[in-house]
């Protein structure tokens, strides 16, 4: 009996010690810990996080569209308040989704250097690292246009930057950085991405070097550094400057553009908020509609007349008519290049770039290259083309309004007419959205100015 008990105790003891392997089996085959390069790549290919749900608040507040009173009434309260730039408008989803994306980037950046290669190569490791930097920098870029006061080269720093979450540890404290730190981080992330990413990619859900350079070009344009913006635009266009020719597009179709068309450098779509930008609700701004020339193909490709004589938008580069394209496209880079050149006094070159774009936007046989008038005129023309090309493109118009308001020549008072009339004047605090109340409550961070 003693022997038996001994055997029994040993076997129990043995179990304690030796079962570690036995218990290392995964409870669900599809589970894994992100310890190899392939898993990290799979994480970055989660399109819901990395290619969707980009911030919408600025576009709800933008001036390229309007809602009827009846449709405004039937939107949810947060969308309604944002539409009229209410002081307490809440846009927590924009914040939440962006920081969710940033967290995912940080998981990848925390693990990538020590991750096992498996069947992948060191080159793959660099690319994945570059992608994580791109998505992080790009997300902070978008957030900065909503929640941080306008910032340009040479402006005074302020304490109202974004909280910079740079590791995946959820217990890290959340504190606001300065605006300068926020922008430095965005630039740093995007520059690293540009170093690590390949020039081109197969499917533009994944960022390329062209995309990272394009993002930097966009950022420097907003910051008013036209030389750097031009530099990055040219670098990006050096990789690929082939435009989609709207002459080849089925403009009569309700869905004229295919997803991943030639213009697309990086594919992303905006968060759909209470249907605000849906074709069924949003009308294209009537002043903007009148600006299209009759031979401008964008008029038919983008606009669809309603029974009432108003126009709907059908030109999303997403290839459908629900989600707004919110990525980076070559036509935008042409417009940036043209604007920078004009602002740097190289009018002739600026006009040439603009004409190259317009030649793909006008009816082939009707296109006559534009001739140069005065400098002021050219910039106005370029900015007007910008509006005509980039309406209903997520993340562009709101930051344009913020930067152009700095210049009295282009400053604009926005007006919403419902039963009441609402105005947003240049430089208004409401150009910077409030941080979500719940975030302020949990983190104790200071709220934006009101």
């Amino acid at each position, binding site marked *: *009996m003693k022997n*038996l*008990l001994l055997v*029994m105790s040993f*076997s*129990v003891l043995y179990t*304690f010690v030796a079962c570690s392997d*036995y*218990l*290392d*089996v*995964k*409870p*669900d*085959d*599809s*589970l*894994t*810990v*992100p310890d190899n390069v392939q898993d990290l790549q*799979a*994480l970055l*290919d*989660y*399109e819901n996080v990395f*290619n969707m749900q980009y911030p919408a608040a600025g576009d709800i507040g933008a001036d390229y569209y309007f809602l*009827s*009173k*009846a*449709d405004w*009434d*039937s939107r949810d*309260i947060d969308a*309604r308040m944002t539409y009229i730039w209410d002081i307490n408008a809440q846009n*927590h989803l924009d*914040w939440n989704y962006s*920081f*969710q994306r940033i*967290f995912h980037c940080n998981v990848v950046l925390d693990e990538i250097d020590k991750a096992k290669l498996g069947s992948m190569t060191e080159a793959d490791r660099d690319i994945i690292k570059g992608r994580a930097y791109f998505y992080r920098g790009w997300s902070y870029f978008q957030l900065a246009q909503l929640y941080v006061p306008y910032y340009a080269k040479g402006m005074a720093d302020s304490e109202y930057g974004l909280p910079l*979450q740079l590791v*995946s*540890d*959820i217990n890290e404290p*959340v504190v606001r950085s300065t605006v300068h730190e926020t922008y430095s981080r965005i630039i740093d992330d995007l520059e690293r991405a540009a170093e690590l990413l390949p020039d081109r990619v197969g*499917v533009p859900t994944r960022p390329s070097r062209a995309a990272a350079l394009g993002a930097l070009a966009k950022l420097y344009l907003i910051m008013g550094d036209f030389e750097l913006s031009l530099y990055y635009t040219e670098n990006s266009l050096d990789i690929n400057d082939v435009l989609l020719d709207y002459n080849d597009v089925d403009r009569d179709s309700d*869905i004229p553009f*295919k*997803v991943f068309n030639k213009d697309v450098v990086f594919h992303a779509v905006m968060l759909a908020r209470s249907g605000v930008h849906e*074709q*069924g*609700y949003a009308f294209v701004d009537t002043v903007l509609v009148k600006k299209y020339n009759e031979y401008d193909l964008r008029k038919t490709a983008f606009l*669809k007349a*309603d*029974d*009432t004589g108003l126009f709907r938008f059908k030109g999303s580069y997403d*290839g459908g*008519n629900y989600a707004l394209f919110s990525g980076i496209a070559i036509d935008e880079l042409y417009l940036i290049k043209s604007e920078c050149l004009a602002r740097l006094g190289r009018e002739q070159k600026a006009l040439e770039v603009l004409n190259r774009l317009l030649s793909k936007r006008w009816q082939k046989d009707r296109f006559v290259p534009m001739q140069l008038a005065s400098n002021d005129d050219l910039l106005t023309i370029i900015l007007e083309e910008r509006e005509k090309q980039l309406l209903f493109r997520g993340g562009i118009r709101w930051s344009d309004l913020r930067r152009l308001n700095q210049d009295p020549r282009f400053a604009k008072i926005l007006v919403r007419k419902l039963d009441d009339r609402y105005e947003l004047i240049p430089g208004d605090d409401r150009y910077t959205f409030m941080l979500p*109340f*719940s975030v302020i409550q*949990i983190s104790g961070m200071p709220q934006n100015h009101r």
Partner: protein
Amino acid sequence: MRQGKLLVLVGAIFLVLKGAFAQQGVVRLSGKAVDEIDRAPVPGVTISVKDIQRIYTTDKDGMFELVLPRRPEYQMTMRRIGFDPLHVNMKIDKDTVVTITLKPADNVLEEVTVNTGYQSIPKERATGSFEVVNAELFNRQIGTDVISRLDGIMPSILFDKRTGAEQRMVIRGVSSLSAIQGAPLIVLDNFPFEGDINSINPNDVESVTLLKDAAAASIWGAKAGNGVLVITTKKGKYKAPWQVSVHANSTIQEKPDLYYMPRMSTSDFIDIEQFLYEQGAFTSMLANTTNRPPLTPVIELLDEHTRGEISETTLKNKLDYFREQDIRKDLSNHFYRTGINQQYSFSLNGGGENYTTLFSAGYDHNRSTLVGNDFRRINLNIQNTFRLTPRLDLSTGIRYSMLFGTNNHLGNIQMSAAKGMYPYAEFVDEYGQALAVTKDYRNSYLDEVDERGGLLDWRYRPYDELHLADNTTTGSNLLFSTNLKYRFLADLTGEVYYQYEHEPSFGRQFYSEDTYYTRDLINRFTQVADNGIIRPIPLGGILDRSQSELKAQSFRGQINYTKDWANHSIAAIIGMEIRHARNEGNNTRLYGYDDDLQTTNRVDYVNRLPIYDNLAGASTIIFSDRAFGGTQRFVSAYSNGSYTYKKKYTLSVSARKDASNLFGVATNDKWSPLWSVGGAWNIGEEEFYHSNLIPRLKVRTTYGYSGNVRNDVAAVTTLQYYGTSRLGRYPYAVVMNPPNAELRWEKIGTFNLGLDFGFVNNVLAGSIEFYRKTATDLVSLVETDPTTGFGSLSMNSAIIKNTGVDLTLNSNTKLGNTHWSGTLLMSLNRNRIEKYMLEPTRFSQWVGTGSSVSPIEGEPAYSVVSYRWGGLDPETGDPIGYLEGVETKDYSLLNQQVTKNDLVFHGSALPEFFGAFRNTIEWKGVSVSMNIAYRTNYYFRRQTINYSNLLTANGQVEHGDFNERWQQPGDERYTTVPSMIYPTNTRRDEFYRNAEVTVERGDHIRIQDINLSYTFLRNGIKPLRNIRATFYARNLGVIWRANKHNLDPDVAQLPLPKSWSIGLNANF
């Protein structure tokens, strides 16, 4: 008897043989104790002989052997709980073999043994807290499954039916913040049962034991935190005559009452649609020529009228017709019916010297109250035991069940994904033909498409769909178990258990070409080109198949040691257990499937294809094939022991360590040690205690720990692969858990103090128990700063304290031929969040229905919290709330900044005091039994109007409180329902919905069930022993309630249907 039983009783007899007495001076008395009624052996009979210290016990086969010093006469007493004590005077002068016949006590109050799944313990020696339901009580209820038969017959178990599910149990309060984790562990015979609980045939059940406290449950370790329910099935008995038993019963279930919940009238809904139409809410949809969003017939009529296509009179006539319609009429007539459940079972059992056998079979057929749904089950079961040698027993059993389900009911019939069906929809015309209703596209558009030709019919006819649906599931469950038991010595046995479980299941959903699903999909992808029609989704049906399989193996080795000598007895076990379970499966879809020829057709999964008429952007064809799998492994080592002195004092200890392959946890943390200690004092056996009134009296107490395994949280970042991304078509993975290194196992400490008592002749007997259960390190979903990347995180964040009392009282009286027995069950549970580590970000997140846990310090885990109510504004009918004590109508601000003082804490959403009172009267074979259940001290929130759901383009018919709404100044004196405003304000609706005026007390009394039985031929006519006929009615409804709205507080939606059964049971 069960194989797994610990042989506490075996030892005593053989010890004697070792020769403590000189052979000359002794006489040997041996024999068997049998039950007077069925002559079955009675184990565990204590035999005491006057002037002899030693107490003898019969073994598990009722055998005993006494070696006694030679005397002229012996005065002997035989006792066994459940039997009348037997006093005999015997004169023997030589070795004698006798048969002792014990007469069952009239009032059987207590099962003698409790089965923990590891061992059987005589209840008088147990220190822990157990509840046992024997076969007789279990079979008093009629039903298809095991679990719902326990409702109302066991203290401590609260059936929480708020979600409409009948089987959700809450045992002794709340010990976990997650509802799934809150379920008790279910053990079938020796091993945890992880298959489908509905596959078990309730007629195979011998008893159900509930293990409530730490000493009882700690043997199940890390899974026992919420209690353990041990289901013991019937087995054959050694040396027992063959017995056959046949059951048959039929149950009729009432058709669900769709009119139970008050609803606004169709006419009012049409008025609202007209109002919205005038407000322009549909203008955009009417103008939408891209997606052609569906519009209700009323909106179409209004539009036709506006466009001058129909006259004012036509409009009025047509609207008046619609006003008369009610969708519930067709639903009730054609989609619901009276349910019929049939159950048949047969069993045969018996045993010889060296073997026992039990064979049983069962068949169930349930015709659901939902037209199209049907369930069938076949059970086969064979259990054998062989005594291979006097020292070695072998048991084997095979349990097999097959389940067939048909799920063709359409469920909730929606107009589109976002919009419920309009209340004036008609599904069937006067000739019984199916009618089309508006579904995904405008009717006028479908007319246009019809004219163009080339497409399949695109209308949706729910009544046809009901008959076209072909959705079945088939499953089986095989349970093979075997057990070897070896008696090394009289007091030492070793046991090995092995169990193999195999549960494959198959799902098949066939959408024939006639179904709307298939027609719609084919049409959407159809391209009409100049040279003909291209159909990327081929004609023919679509077949979805799913397959999954669970294979589990369990192994247990255990050593039992029991010894009784002089005044001492010891019972101890030590063992270890390994369990491995693997589940695997896959889903596949076939397009262009022909059910007769089994032919299929290929589709292009790769390219984005245009959608007909550009109704949507180009899409790929749905690809739903996938495979999945997982492995669960557990290793446990356990031990427990008890020591009893003079049958008066018992001390018990147990310890257990569990480990599992939890993911993302360091190996050291996978082991979770748990323990318990307990003591019992049998006062009734004390010499100083002589009470003629209460002869039986026992106090017992235990303390210890059990746990909760959380499979859904991890300490390191974990990813899960999902499939192929939509656009890039890359394999992608999702972060399931953020790294959370500080996560610990949930732990539950339980203190239990119990008193068992029995008055003389068991006129009144029962037990009262007090417990305190403290669950620490509870994991809950905590709202976190979304800036971290997560809006909520699972964290060890709460401590819950449960205090409670369970009382069981049994009473028996006999008056002539009439026998009355009554059982009163009372359970008191008060659970409070003792500590919650995190501050709430907004107090408004506490308000609600109490259907999920809200961790508020000092409040019940499920608590009903409201906004304070300030009445209706007499001018506008707006609801008024309080913000920092001041009246306000700023509902957004209220939602953001409401303070604790502006809230009303009503109390628990689960009854804090509940139980049942069961009375049975028997007279000459007639037995009438009624169980009345009561629940008090809790609150529920009744449903009310939500204007935001009504006043939108996707509006649906709303609650009947619409009729009670404030309409003009003065109404505020009679109603609390706010006025209707447009545009709506979701926060205003939310405020009223969660204000204190929509909360009601849940207290109520209901008739749980009534059982009426008559036993024919009580004395039997060979070979028949008896026949019993039963009438049984269940869920008879509420007889008293505190709320004035005639609502059943136990359910959120429809009350459980009343049912009536008749049954017949014959024993041979």
